[in-house]
């Protein structure tokens, strides 16, 4: 089958759903399994041992991971790191890193935001300083996905000329600290990455292809759309679970799904999911085509789909009644993840603020 077609995506979706349905994906999908699935290298060129497809395929995996509320290193490695590497000028070092990303032999992530701004400003987290003894790196990044697990971190930095560049650093580099940042959502792992006067002996500084500022914004948009994809899958899973429950759970001698109050709440979730799907589809298409105007679609998808997913998971908890509030039901896993997705890489309000800049 030719790469990048709807058929391929359908097949990828079916395989992913099946694979994630085995075992308890929210307790963790082993790295080896992730690597063997080929998902880490979807966007890596074929000559570098990847699948050579686009973000449209990555989006399918992201939706399925959200649907399963899967705990994986996918966000750090395949979304952030592989996306960052792909945006760099091709060179031997970059190509080797892409190859190792695709094969899963290198566990890596990227630190792109400093954790203090709204995630959209492109405030670059690290600074590269020229020193007589050689270049030095300082700065900090927050909410770096899978940072504590990664052997290699791609740090987004401004070089002395103020141009964004990428510094690949081993986790054990002197002066670099990675502190786990535990969050309520147990399916995700983050770390605070701090660089204090890290000397860069023999470390290559990697440069972006094209306009570096635009490349950084595209990376942040990519991360935002990834959250929207995850939230879309999550919301659909919550709707399906709720409908399945409402069809069989009986009160007052009738399935609760026959009551309008319950039925109409489910109908609203279906409408929201349909709208989310359209906005996410458009954002994914534009990201995959490297459309320079993709930012608008990304902000729309991120703000709408991530908010809708919180609503879906919240409604699911409500309509499952007392059982929905228990730990055992697992709905809390989705609700927590939905709130995290909503706040990562730009809140809905931040994305709408960005949209609104076009009005004035």
């Amino acid at each position, binding site marked *: 089958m030719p790469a990048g077609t709807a058929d391929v995506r359908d097949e990828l979706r079916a395989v992913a759903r099946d694979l994630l349905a085995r075992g308890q994906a929210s307790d963790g999908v082993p790295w080896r399994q992730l690597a063997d699935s080929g998902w880490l290298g979807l966007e890596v060129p074929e000559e570098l041992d990847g699948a050579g497809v686009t973000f449209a395929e990555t989006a399918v995996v992201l939706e399925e991971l959200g649907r399963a509320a899967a705990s994986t290193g996918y966000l750090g490695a395949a979304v952030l790191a592989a996306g960052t590497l792909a945006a760099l000028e091709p060179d031997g070092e970059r190509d080797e890193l892409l190859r190792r990303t695709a094969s899963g032999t290198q566990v890596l992530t990227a630190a792109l935001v400093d954790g203090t701004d709204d995630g959209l400003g492109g405030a670059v987290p690290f600074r590269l300083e020229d020193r007589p003894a050689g270049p030095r790196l300082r700065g900090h990044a927050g909410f770096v996905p899978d940072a504590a697990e990664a052997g290699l971190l791609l740090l987004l930095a401004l070089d002395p000329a103020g141009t964004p560049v990428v510094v690949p650093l081993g986790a054990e580099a002197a002066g670099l600290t990675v502190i786990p940042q535990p969050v309520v959502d147990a399916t995700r792992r983050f770390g605070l990455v701090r660089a204090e006067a890290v000397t860069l002996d023999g470390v290559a500084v990697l440069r972006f292809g094209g306009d570096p500022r635009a490349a950084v914004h595209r990376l942040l948009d990519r991360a935002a759309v990834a959250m929207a994809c995850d939230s879309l899958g999550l919301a659909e899973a919550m709707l399906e679970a709720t409908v399945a429950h409402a069809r069989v759970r009986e009160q007052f001698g009738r399935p609760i799904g026959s009551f309008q109050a319950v039925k109409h709440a489910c109908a609203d979730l279906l409408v929201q999911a349909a709208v989310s799907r359209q906005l996410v589809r458009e954002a994914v298409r534009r990201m995959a085509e490297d459309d320079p105007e993709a930012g608008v679609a990304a902000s729309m998808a991120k703000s709408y789909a991530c908010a809708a997913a919180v609503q879906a998971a919240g409604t699911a908890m409500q309509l499952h009644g007392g059982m929905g509030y228990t730990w055992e039901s697992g709905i809390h896993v989705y609700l927590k993840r939905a709130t995290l997705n909503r706040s990562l890489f730009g809140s809905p309000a931040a994305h709408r603020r960005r949209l609104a800049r076009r*009005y004035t």
Partner: protein
Amino acid sequence: MAPRPAATGAAPSEPAAPEPAAPVAGAPVAAPAWPEDPAEFRAAVRDWCGGHVPAEWRRAQTGASEEEFAAFQKDWFQQLRRVGLAVPHWPREWGGGMSVAQQIVLYQELAARDAPRLVLAFVAIHHAASTLLVAGTGEQRRRHLPAILDGEIWVQGFSEPGAGSDLAALRATARREGDGYLVNGQKLWASGAVHADWCLLLARTDPHAPKRRGISYFLLDMRTPGIEVRPIRQATGSSHFCEIFLDDVLIPAANLVGPQDQGWRVAQETLGAERGMTMLELAERLGHVGFRWLAEACARPGPGGRRPIEDALVQDRLASLETEITGLRALCRDLVERHAAGRVGPADASIVKLYYSELLQRTMDFGVEIAGPGGQTVLEKPASSGWESGAWVLDFIGSWEWTIPGGTSEIQRTIIGERGLGLPREPMGD
């Protein structure tokens, strides 16, 4: 009944548009050769609109009498018809035949160029035509489809005082009498009935059958003796809806659509058929003129000189509405594309109707808020426009014309829950 200009039989030459083929006597006007390629077609439609959308039509249609409204509508319809743009969704042999891709472009461009909407012909070209094409006899099609192109106006006579959401409870009767049916009853919410030449009528032919099985579907000539049309003044102050009183009205048996007592099924098959493309048109209108005016209203200095858009809260709500309208437009495009591919889900039309109508309402509500007290002084809205005209208060009030008719929002949610999600049905009579 309003006077109307005679339909033009010949196609005058139209600058800036493809030349239509010369009409053959007795045959529908052949569609001119518009480009198949969507980009070229878009440019051609844009060009045509530039030369043909009447300048200042909104001003002329504001405060227009019923007669002026009807005359304007009929003239605009004939302009579109002459160049093959009035009924793009009809089959080619009846004067349509545009691809789905072309229709999408056409409605996008008409919306973007702020062309008048085909309000008066709406039921005729959509609902009547789909009824005739899906369930009509050859004779019925030959009688009415060309007539619709010539300006025949239709109205829908379905609802009754006691049959709104529960349409199947309708009580108008049609009793077999010689070579026809004798009809008695009352129809309600018949939109534009004062202008109508013909009516799509549901009436009960078997009072003893379960309520959905005893209904028949008729084509009723509105000139038949025994018909009285009374306009109803609506919440907006205008009188677009009507009551139709039927007192011993005789309908020839040849005007029955489908088998006797099978009218409910015919109505089900033909009701939703056009919803996709008509919703797409409305969504495009909301996306272009509707949102543009809202954004402009937000950017206009208020009484204190301050522009609403400088308020972060206003920015947030505007961005939220733009996002939702973008989602709606994509949803409609997706629906028509899947409709063409035969992949429409059982609740898809309801999802779009529900979402559009409530989003329209919320958007107009925000317009009212932004327009402030000054908005309250706009006492008239232009006829022939979409559901967003810039007369925010009247548009807001008028938006209930979307959340109530055609299946209320509550009915739509029930359909979505039951047909779309497979939730158990409510306990209901037959």
